[in-house]
């Protein structure tokens, strides 16, 4: 398996097309008239070697790595709406790799390493900002949890530090340590942080396009054509598109795609909500996550507080959730940071997250030959985008899930070998 690559992509060979301060300046001289499309808008061909369903970050990354690392350039990404309009375009952008279980640590740390060179690799600034990610512990039980996770992470070779309440206060002077369930400690991953969600989709799209991938937007997959238990293509709103292999990376719609192919998935879709405040000058400099009182907050480069809310516990494809979750997000936020109470919420929204019982993703072969699924990232897959795409691309190319993807096979729901990060640690995102 090819390792993460940090060199500037060789596929953007035309230096003038590459983005840089220089190209920006040059284009400014011509009033920005000469910028090219970030990606083409081709008509679908009749057949591709690989068709990827879903133009979110994971789908685009898969296509990008197929084309740039696996030597498969005859690839299409089929997106029913606009690129990145799914969860990629609506998540709270938290990136970390401090997971407890080996399988998860393997996946997320793989992704982290790719994140660390991604802007350069893609020649697109994805604003990956390693500002640090701090998990707060509010009870003896939380302390046991971060104790276990901190050690596990450390021994997996991933950075993590325990903080005392005093150290937490030093990092975050505005925190109220004596909130209901006082802060008893913290677990810090300095390499954790955020990235600009849209840029990730666009950067991968541009990179994939440059490597020959056809990105086809506004094209909905409406059927999966299977002949003698082997996938041969997809029926779309723009006609049939043949495919040697199909990778479904449709996040919130994976069950729908599976139904088209004639099987069920261990998934349920829920609305997951988030909100942003009005922009303000910098006030918190790291990502703060508290499972004890349910707060997830960071501040974007533009200045808004980006606040994760919860997921409603009913199945839904509506991209809207119920308001009481917003109340139960803002209440805790004001509890932990009482001075935010005079700030204002600017916008709230929801995404459709596909959740497995063990809250870990599925990267897997399926009952249909040559049809692969990458889904179930639920509330926390943005951070995995490069790693997931990379592992999935190599797995599709090989026809077998690779070492990083293998534990996430769908078989685990029959064997019982769940990767139950949630049960083990009760940690979200």
């Amino acid at each position, binding site marked *: 398996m090819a390792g993460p690559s*940090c060199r500037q992509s060789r596929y953007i060979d035309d230096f003038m097309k590459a983005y*840089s301060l220089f190209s920006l300046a040059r284009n*400014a001289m011509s*009033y*920005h*008239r000469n*910028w*090219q*499309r970030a*990606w083409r808008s081709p008509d679908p061909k009749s057949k591709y070697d690989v068709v990827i369903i879903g133009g979110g970050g994971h789908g685009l990354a898969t296509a990008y790595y197929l084309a740039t690392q696996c030597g498969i350039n005859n690839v299409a990404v089929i997106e029913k709406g606009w690129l990145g309009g799914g969860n990629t375009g609506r998540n709270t952008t938290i990136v970390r790799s401090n997971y407890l279980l080996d399988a998860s640590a393997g996946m997320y740390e793989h992704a982290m390493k790719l994140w*660390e060179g991604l*802007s*350069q690799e893609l*020649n697109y*600034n994805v*604003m990956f900002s390693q500002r640090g990610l701090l998990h707060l512990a509010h*009870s003896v*039980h939380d302390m*046991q949890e971060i104790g*276990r996770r*901190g*050690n596990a992470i*450390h*021994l*997996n*070779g991933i950075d993590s530090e*325990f903080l005392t309440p005093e150290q937490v206060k030093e990092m975050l002077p*505005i925190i109220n340590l004596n*909130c*209901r369930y006082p802060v008893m400690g913290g677990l810090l991953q300095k390499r954790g942080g955020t990235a600009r969600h849209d840029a990730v989709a*666009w*950067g991968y799209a541009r990179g994939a396009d440059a490597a020959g991938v056809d990105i086809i937007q506004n094209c909905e997959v409406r059927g999966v054509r299977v002949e003698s238990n082997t996938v041969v293509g997809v029926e779309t709103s723009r006609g049939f598109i043949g495919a040697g292999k199909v990778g479904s990376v449709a996040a919130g719609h994976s069950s729908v795609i599976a139904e088209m192919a004639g099987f069920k998935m261990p998934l349920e879709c829920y609305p997951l909500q988030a909100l942003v405040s*009005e922009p*303000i*000058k*910098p*006030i918190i400099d790291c990502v703060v996550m508290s499972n004890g009182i349910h707060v997830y907050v960071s501040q974007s*480069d*533009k*200045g808004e507080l980006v606040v994760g809310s919860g997921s409603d516990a009913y199945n839904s494809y509506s991209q*809207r959730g119920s308001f009481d979750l917003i*109340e139960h997000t803002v*209440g*805790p936020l*004001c*509890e932990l940071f009482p*001075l935010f109470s*005079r*700030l*204002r*919420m*600017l*916008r709230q929204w929801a995404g459709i997250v596909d959740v497995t019982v063990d809250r870990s993703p599925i990267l897997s072969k399926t009952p249909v030959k040559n049809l692969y699924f990458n889904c179930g990232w639920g509330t926390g897959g943005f951070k995995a985008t490069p790693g997931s795409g990379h592992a999935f691309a190599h797995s599709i190319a090989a026809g077998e899930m690779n070492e990083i993807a293998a534990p996430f096979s769908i078989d685990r729901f029959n*064997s*019982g070998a*769940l990767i139950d990060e*949630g*049960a*083990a*640690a009760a940690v979200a995102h």
Partner: protein
Amino acid sequence: MSQSQRLSQGGMIDRSKPISFAFDGRQYTGYQGDTLASALLANGVRLMGRSFKYHRPRGAIAAGSEEPNALVQLETGAYTEPNTRATCIELYDGLVAKSQNRWPSLEFDIGAVNSLVARFLPAGFYYKTFMWPASMWMTYEKFIRKAAGLGVSPVEDDPDVYHGTYAHCDVLVIGGGPAGISAATAAAGSGARVMLLDEGSEYGGALLGTSDNAAAKSYIDSALGALGQSENVRLLSRTTATGYYDYNYITALEKVTDHLGPGNGGDAPRQRFWKIRAKQVVIAAGSIERPLIFADNDRPGMMLANAVGVYINRYGVLPGNDVVVFTNNDSAYQVALDASAAGATVTVVDTRRNVSADLKSKLEQNNIRLFEGHAISSVQGGKGVESVRIMELSADGESLQGQAWEIVCTCVATSGGWTPSCHMFSQSGGKLKYEESIAGFIPDSSRAKNSCPNVSAGSCNGVFTTQECIAQGVEAGISAAGAAGRSGSVPSVDTFAVNEIPQGAIAPLWLVPTVHPVGEGKAKHFHDFQNDVTAADIHLAAREGFVSVEHLKRYTTTGMATDQGKTSNLNALAIMANIQGVSIPEVGTTTFRPPYTPLTLGAVGGQESRELFIQERKTPMHEHHVASGAVFEDVGDWKRPWYLPKEGEDMHAAVQRETLAVRESVGMLDASTLGKIDIQGKDAVKLLEMVYTNNWQKLAIGSCRYGLMLNEHGMIFDDGVTTRLGENHYHMTTTTGGAARVMNWLEEWLQTEWPEWEVYCTSVTEQWAVLAINGPKARDLLRDLTDIDVSKDAFPFMTMREGTVADVPARVYRISFTGELSYEINVPARYGKHLIEALTEAGKKYDLVPYGTETMHVLRAEKGFIIVGQDTDGTVTPHDMDMDWIVSKTKEEYLGNRAQARVDTRREKRPQLIGLLTEDPTVVLPEGAHIVAEVLDKPPMPTIGHVTSSYMSPNAGRSIALALLQDGINRKGETVSLSMMDGTVHKAKVTDTVFVDKEGVRVRG
């Protein structure tokens, strides 16, 4: 320069109440009834803020909540509030405001260099640069972050309080303009329970900004007076409907005391958050004017035409003595007339060539110059408009031609037409339709969501005369009331007319051409003022393929500012439509999301934070623990004594003392928080058989048994002791944190899977106050207080007896979580306090020691008893816990049974619970420490297990630990290594899990 722009008469301000206020350190005077913006304008201040990206000088363009520019930092210290719209701040005495996003001052802002290099900062420039060297991004980012943001957050805790409340009505009317008032009147007349909200300080909406607003006011007052009489009507002004959710759930923010100034609200909350459930909703939210997009259309002094009208008529302020009205429709002509009447020199520039004779003659009568078929080609003046140049538009509207005329002016009133406020309708899930005749989207009432019955009325529905608005309002009010089941007799609702000129025949001109192609001259054509998004940015986005309206939004950030594009969105997508050569509806709109205007976080969550955040559940003995000096631990929502230090003791000392005392004399623990479920009915035992792994058929009445519960995945999720109280009667206990979960688990199975079984479960957790007494002297102590025969034979281990303890009725369970001779005394909660006092008194002679949860944990660990949730984590089976003894081999079925047989669950070498004894007995391993397969110099090191519980055990005379270790049961006797975060390595021997009294003699003593 005192109120130089204040008109000598007119307006709805109270000239008898002058108010002094400060802006950017200078003192000014305004009047009661002013907003900060109107008062500043009255004082000749046009420059109020700087834009986000280019730091361009900006003034107010609007008079309402759609304002994108005039954002200020209101007040100071703990009361400070960033990004507050000057157009919505009601003036109060002593108000202090500062401009934002500028340094060192508003007049001279260093950040304005961005404007000079603007050419290098097109939409999305940051995606293209700042990438090299990679290590520098964090440094670049720091600067970017500092430069971004608008105002500053307070750094002190909010001194204000907030109130939230639910409300219900038949008909909710959103918006108190003519349409809303008449809808409310009609609905109330039909007998409906009505709520009428308006975000303004006064009802009347657009009527307040008309030149005959005095007459309008008396019309409004009489309508509101009548509404106010009705018991069934709730009137809420200063209240914005912020969100419209499923099933007609509408949230609204009422600004209760903001207009009084900080600290002046008395006992009243600062703001109130309404959660309204309405059977029917009438949306009468009015419409918002759009600016025309032309070169440098952002200079202070440029305003929406209707805002100019509002400042003149409502506030008695003339925003400029020389006014150019620039329009593509009729409605701004009224503003020209009003400005002229107020004494301004007015010029009208109309992009159209077919202005009606009627309008022309009106202008002529007032000596107002008119340029037909013309457009503004450029603007002079930096921190305020000084003059504009106009040129003739080509017939196709694509270019400018001829000679440029310069018109001196300090105010430009522009109107690009009216955008109906469809926010609420869209948020409710309704779909919009594009109406060519008004060049705007309006609600498609046939595509409202079934669960959100509503009707739009007035200008938000695309009608632009007051009389039509009133007529629609009445109709909407009656139909909504009827749909809500109220159809009384409706009194006739008065209609009313004002001086206004409807939009009429609008000739859309989405982007006024300039001499240079868009984006190539120096001039900028702003549509999103706050986020500094220009027409050129839209062109760039289109060029780069960001053509979907959602990409356009995200790439250029148009519509993402604090005004959410109220004045800009339609312009932006129309420009994109033109570039693409498609129709506006084909481009489509972005999603309307709550809140309508930014919503104070404290109002949403403030009430249920701090002391009302999450209930602190306390047992009936709580006060006693407090008096005993207990330090508390949060267990779930409960407060439990953690340890009870004596003078000078730290936690360790207290726990060691308590732990020893229990095994030496007797200890006492408040166990009231354990979940308790009363189970009755002839099929009760069937239920137990299904939910526990062991056998329950043969449990004798009066006997107790321990049980483990598994989920259907086969993993342990709760445990506890259940006692048979009678023939078909059981008392189940659960973990403290698991009580609700277990109750639901039982009920779910009973109600959905086995509804024919006769079993009744009742939570009795709080019914009983429970004291556990443990230790060799527990029996003696109990004997002193009870009428129960406590002798060993009469009251054996794992049985229950009823009687009295300390003269109150009690159930005493002889069960033990400590391995000591133990009794759990349950009395009705009302006697809990009595019980602990009586025991404390009687215990003196036995050296009774109260102990807390930490000691309990040590004691049970000494005996190897697990804590579900600490030693288990949702991924362990009974076998993993070395608890095969509790899994029935004979039962046909129980929940979680089948899962035990799966490949992975049967797998060898799963992590299993074992004991660990460190080589150095003084080392207490940290909980969570990992056992490594092999010690390496540095990570990564493969791990094979982790410590779940670890304590210094005074009874074992050394440290002890429990751990989950792969294949642990077979490894007993081996030595393993644990690698710490700081690099130290501890060695420990793998043992069984019982460290004290291995034979279990004491518990049966």
